């Protein structure tokens, strides 16, 4: 075990390999407040990558209803229960990560989902109790709220899948930090499936190898956003590259939201993987639940997000989400417009912060006829 720096838990931790950062790190921001769980992202991924034999049950992208939804079944509860509680002291996590809590003979604290755990891809969908005229039918730990959590591979800085593979079949691309399973080397031991706490590696029984989200790397290489991003009709997603906190640039959209405004947070940072999908937490959910899920920065993130209406920079950058199929490397606001630039510095998108409003009367006064609500 090596000692590595994990900025998300504010301390050094143990990891199987020494710290080795890629030239840049694939990262994404999902605004949970905008997600409507239409699953268009899920289908975009499914049709693009996992429509083959042996991939029937795979969802490299899925959207689950929290608190009760999960795929595979109870992936989060299983890991949380095994890990036990862990205390945060300020921004420092004092508990054990899944690497530090590994059982004897293991590289990572993990659990193996069985096929039955993959049998309910949308269990818990829209489950919400309360707010019923005559009272809820039953009382659950979390009443009267839910939200949608879209999930892909987090392309972690310290991937558990990578550290658990005894064959070194999983690698992190030095150019962009995307984590891939080498399909020519994998022998289907499923150690990665067991180790990934987010359960985003799947065993393919037809090929006998394990497969996972590839971050649509062929598109990333062309400067384009992945399939689940460009097909998101709620425009909740934004892809880019995240820096370490000390290298953060305010003109990098990801850095601005993660490091400068701290409005987007990692999913279960206490696991210790330094995941690189960051979530703007839902504003309608009790804070204790969110603190467990996104760490101690939740209170501040929600307050900042709620203030975005009076915060032109923050509101402006959020309006870039879903505005272009290209990857926005830099951004800036000019008065009432937000501009996005590609890697070469060329402008690729210009979004007005307020769309012009046209009021169209129901009656055409010139012709004195009612207008029909059709083209």
């Amino acid at each position, binding site marked *: 075990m090596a000692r590595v720096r994990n900025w998300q838990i504010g301390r050094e931790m143990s990891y199987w390999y020494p710290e080795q950062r890629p030239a840049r790190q694939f990262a994404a921001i999902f605004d949970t407040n905008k997600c409507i769980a239409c699953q268009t992202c899920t289908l975009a991924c499914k049709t693009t990558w996992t429509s083959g034999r042996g991939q029937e049950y795979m969802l490299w992208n899925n959207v689950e209803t929290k608190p009760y939804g999960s795929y595979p079944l109870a992936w989060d509860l299983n890991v949380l229960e095994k890990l036990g509680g862990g205390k945060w002291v300020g921004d420092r996590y004092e508990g054990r990560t899944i690497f530090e809590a590994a059982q004897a*003979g293991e590289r990572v604290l993990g659990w193996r989902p069985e096929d039955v755990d993959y049998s309910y891809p949308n269990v818990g969908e829209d489950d919400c109790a309360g707010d019923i005229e005559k009272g809820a039918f039953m009382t659950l730990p979390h009443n009267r709220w839910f939200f949608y959590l879209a999930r892909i591979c987090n392309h972690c800085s310290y991937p558990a899948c990578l550290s658990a593979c005894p064959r*070194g079949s999983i690698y992190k691309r030095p150019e962009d930090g995307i984590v891939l399973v080498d*399909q020519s080397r*994998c022998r289907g031991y499923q150690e990665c499936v067991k180790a990934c706490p987010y359960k985003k590696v799947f065993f393919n029984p037809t*090929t*006998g*190898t394990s497969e996972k989200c590839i971050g649509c790397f062929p598109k990333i290489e062309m400067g384009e956003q992945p399939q689940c991003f460009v097909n998101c009709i709620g425009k909740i997603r934004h892809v880019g590259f995240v820096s370490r906190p000390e290298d953060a640039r305010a003109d990098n959209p990801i850095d601005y939201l993660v490091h400068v405004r701290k409005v987007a947070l990692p999913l279960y940072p206490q696991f210790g993987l330094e995941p690189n999908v960051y979530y703007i937490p839902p504003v309608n959910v009790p804070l204790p639940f969110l603190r467990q899920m996104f760490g101690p920065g939740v209170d501040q993130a929600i307050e900042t997000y709620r203030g975005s209406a009076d915060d032109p920079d923050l509101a402006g950058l959020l309006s870039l989400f879903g505005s272009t199929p290209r990857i926005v490397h830099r951004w800036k606001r000019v008065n009432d417009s937000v501009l996005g630039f590609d890697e070469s510095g060329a402008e690729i998108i210009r979004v007005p912060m307020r769309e012009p409003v046209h009021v169209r009367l129901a009656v055409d006064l010139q012709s004195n006829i009612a207008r029909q609500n059709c083209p």
Partner: protein
Amino acid sequence: MITADRHAGRSVQARTRQRRGNALPFAAHVLAVAVLAGCARREPPPANEVVALRAAALASDPGDAAWARAPEFVAPLIPQDMVEPRQLVASTGVVRVRALQDGTRIAFRLAWVDSTFDDLPRPARFSDACAVQLPQHFGPDLPAPQMGEAGKPVEITYWSAAWQAVVNGRPDSIQAIYPRATVDHYPYAAPSLAKDRVAQEEFARRYAPARALGSPQSHPPGQPVQDLLAEGPGTLTPAATTRSTGRGAYAKTLWSVVLVRPLPETMRSTDRAQVAFAVWNGGAGEIGARKMRTGWVPMSLGGAP
């Protein structure tokens, strides 16, 4: 630790003698019945090492009567507890080994008790399997018994129950795993491709990345076995071609598997060698490094037929 285990053959024999008293009587009975069926000759006494009898023709079926001529060596298995992920719980106790060789090839018959039959890998389910390991260059300075070591490769022949099932005719479909499964649509099964088998297969390969890359893992070479090379834990690599053959059968909690493989050049002119074995009980979650294994076991190659 690896070095300390290098010449474990002697201690294997010692442990064998210790354990012979409590060897599995049921397994022994089943094996004896299977091997001796149709064979009038007397069973040779148990060996205290692997004895590869010289034979004009090598038996390729585990039920072949020729195996009765070969003395049986009972190899105790120990958990792989040297590298993570470790096997901390002992499962399969012994593997019973018989061997025949014709000067260029060597055939092993491995038999072990496994109360759970597992030949269908899927999430959290693993295949029963076994393997034979030989040093690529046999000599006084043997590689570490656990997958060899850098500069001292080992040759491994691996047999898997999952591949045996494919060889035996199990179809390559989701229904073979989940009989009641239905699938809305596979792109390769689109009506527009129905009359073009080549296009269908090309399309199916797009969604099977391991096959598209020619991964031997996803393409059993028409055999339930695979030849591999290793120079230490984590370095296992398929050989350029698999020249070994094999066949396994399961009956009454007993796996019987024959592995026939080329004899390494350096073993063709010697009458002494070393060999190692490994067994995986899929039902106990054993896969990869999670296995029961031996150290190097002494092997005699000079026995007369």
